[in-house]
């Protein structure tokens, strides 16, 4: 049996990234993700990698841009207010088509908010938090093993689609400890990096940019990006399906909220209620088809989030026309994390 480790989610992301070949980490301290830069500052020198604690969130993500432009696997991590600061560069990298990993171990807001688990950053992550109209792939882990696995997957998806990828977690999945089974990075066919800057040598000049001023150039570029988003939607949606096949009510949610909801679903099953869980793992692309298929039969969906209702908009756009979508949310703040019993109460209310 493979060796099991007891680690925090934040460390699991680091281990996954390192296993994926990431040797460039640039970051800035902010709670609740400080385990990530601290771990990377210890491990990167041992691996001949680079760790820089930058002067700002902005500088750190721009360092990622530079390393990524050479084809290196590079990452940064932060938490909500820090991610807001990185949004300029994320928009640039979406336009420049640069692969990289951005981790948001989100905290509560708005503003300085607090350091508790929150899912208030769904809109920012999924709807294009920066300017200009773009999408990046957003992955939402709900366990420590998934923090590890998705960190690896993130780098591959980033290269396949030439895009920044975000892991959207929070302090529950970031700070919590759980067993982790490390494993080698799964083999995946990856495209050649024929765009990476390297010094032209005897070849053609390469340049990476996001400015297009020529007649029709920027429109063409945006259609190209849009085609990529449609390809992601067709090929990369991922979700967890838990006992939905016979369910009369499907609970949904992502990340830590879905984790609590899953316990509530198991409690409901013990009481004989036919309840299942459908948990999106990719928030962009959103697994719309999975919702459409299941709500062709099951007409009740209860969405649980640690906010006042964000992902629920995508759920409503995805379900069958005659399905009812109910929402239960707790906006973030100390003492606002819902209990499984609380969610079970909501299940019974709508069942």
């Amino acid at each position, binding site marked *: 049996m493979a060796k099991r480790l007891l680690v925090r989610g934040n460390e699991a992301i680091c281990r996954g990234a390192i296993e994926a070949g990431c040797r460039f980490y640039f970051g800035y301290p902010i709670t609740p993700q400080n385990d990530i830069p601290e771990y990377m500052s210890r491990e990167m020198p041992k691996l001949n990698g680079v760790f820089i604690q930058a002067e700002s969130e902005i500088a750190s993500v721009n*360092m990622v841009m530079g390393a990524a432009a050479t084809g290196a696997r590079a990452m940064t991590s932060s938490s909500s207010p820090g991610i807001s600061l990185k949004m300029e560069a994320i928009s640039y990298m979406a336009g*420049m088509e640069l692969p990289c990993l951005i981790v948001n171990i989100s905290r509560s807001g708005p503003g300085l908010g607090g350091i508790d688990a929150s899912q208030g950053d769904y809109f920012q992550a999924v709807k294009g938090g920066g300017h200009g109209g773009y999408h990046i792939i957003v992955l939402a882990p709900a366990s420590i093993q998934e923090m590890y696995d998705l960190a690896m997957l993130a780098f591959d998806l980033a290269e396949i689609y030439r895009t920044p990828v975000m892991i959207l977690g929070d302090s529950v999945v970031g700070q919590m400890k759980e067993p982790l089974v490390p494993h080698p990075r799964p083999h995946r066919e990856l495209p050649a990096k024929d765009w990476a800057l390297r010094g032209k040598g005897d070849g053609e000049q390469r340049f990476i940019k996001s400015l297009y001023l020529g007649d029709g150039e920027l429109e063409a570029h945006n259609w190209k990006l849009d085609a990529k988003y449609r390809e992601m939607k067709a090929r990369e949606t991922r979700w967890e399906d838990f006992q939905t096949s016979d369910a009369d009510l499907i609970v949904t949610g992502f990340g830590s909220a879905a984790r609590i909801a899953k316990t509530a679903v198991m409690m409901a099953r013990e009481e004989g209620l036919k309840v299942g869980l459908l948990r999106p793992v990719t928030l962009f692309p959103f697994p719309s088809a999975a919702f459409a298929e299941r709500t062709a039969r099951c007409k009740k969906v209860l969405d649980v989030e640690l906010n006042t209702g964000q992902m629920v908009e995508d759920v409503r756009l995805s379900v069958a026309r005659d399905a009812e979508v109910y929402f239960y949310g707790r906006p973030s703040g100390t003492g606002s994390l819902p209990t499984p019993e609380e969610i079970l109460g909501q299940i019974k209310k709508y069942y």
Partner: protein
Amino acid sequence: MQQVFKRPTSLKDVQTHFCPGCHHGTIHRLVAEALDEFGLQKETIGIASIGCSVFLYYYFDIDVIETPHGRAPAVATGVKRARPDRFVFTYQGDGDLAAIGTAEIIHAANRGEHISVIFVNNTTYGMTGGQMAPTTLLGQKTSTSPYGRKPQVEGYPIRMAELLSGLDGVAFSARAAVNSPKNLMDAKKQIRKAFRYQVEGKGFSFVEVLAACPTNWGMNPIEANERVGREMCEFFKLGTFKNTAEL
């Protein structure tokens, strides 16, 4: 017939978008000549900034990344750390480097990143239409200091070459101008020295080059060129402020 003067190999044979009398073209040429002299064209990654310098890749036949406003030194840090065997330089204007990118230049310099920075100071935001820059001289009228820059209201012009020379991470810092044949030859020497610092692994190097912006100064090219010598060189003294390896 012997050819005694030609376009540097690192520059493309294209027309630039620069206004008549603008010094960017001249400074581009000096940078390209230095790249050629060190044989760096094939191993260089240039870092373009925002402003009139954004089109570096149209004029230089080298690999280039175009970066967000002010962030060139941070992007250069990422490039150089990932490819320490490559020659990396940024080319930035005064709004980019001395206003929105102040944090990035100071900390890249203070970390002693092995990069070279060409800083073009023309006391104004050229691309956006002549607004006040951090280097705008006292009394100078711009589109956002229409009554002339007053220290009580807009503060003072900032001397970046001197400021950076105070940082331990900086190996070389100098200021040059291209308004006369003598100054131009000196500017070329300073740029060459800055590049030599990186080529020899001697640390962070910085050259500020004073430049004319006739269009936004409301002058003809000759008047603008004269203003560089008369007003700018008076406040922004030419010279070498740090030269740790005494190159």
